């Protein structure tokens, strides 16, 4: 099971990142769960300086931007 976290307060970029991450996981045929983390203290616990951010199995893969679906697929394998 691949655990995906979207760190962000729910702005348009956060939503776009969640859409792309979900699409990437589905296209790869992964079993996954995706959780949106909006609590700022929880977000800070990951050490990120900017949101949105994508965490894959406890590792922050990107922060401050929204990679394409293809770019996210590379982060998931």
């Amino acid at each position, binding site marked *: 099971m691949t655990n995906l976290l979207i760190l962000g307060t729910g702005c348009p970029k956060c939503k776009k990142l969640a859409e792309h991450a979900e699409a990437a996981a589905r296209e790869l045929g992964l079993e996954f769960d995706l959780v949106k983390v909006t609590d700022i203290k929880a977000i800070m616990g990951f050490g990120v300086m*900017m949101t949105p951010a994508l965490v894959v199995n406890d590792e922050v893969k990107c922060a*401050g931007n929204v990679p394409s679906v293809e770019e996210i697929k590379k982060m998931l394998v």
Partner: protein
Amino acid sequence: MQQLPTCGCGGSNRLVFSCSGAADTGELADRGARGIARGGAAQMACLAGLGGQVSGIVASARGAAAVLVVDGCPLDCGRRALELAGCSRIAHLRLSDIGFPKGHSPVTDEAVARVVAAGRQLINDFDKESQT
């Protein structure tokens, strides 16, 4: 006080790192970077986190619109740490280049103010160039 993460929707995400080595210029670099951050030109981030490969800090450095690194001397430890972490949009301020030689640079308020001014100018110019 730990700084809050900035949202990517609002404006430019800029970070400042500094070396914080044993020499006088290491302290000057650190205090200068803190002054730059307090003034709002960039958010200060932790260089040790890059070296320690803390994923949130590495990802933030790579995702920033511009990164300013303040190095106290020509060893350029800060810049090297950023390059090793895969960062490419780096504005580099080396204190020995602006009249602060290692071992001969008392850390005075005036010296800190000069570093702050130089760093702020550099990251502003760098960010403008990146956008053109």
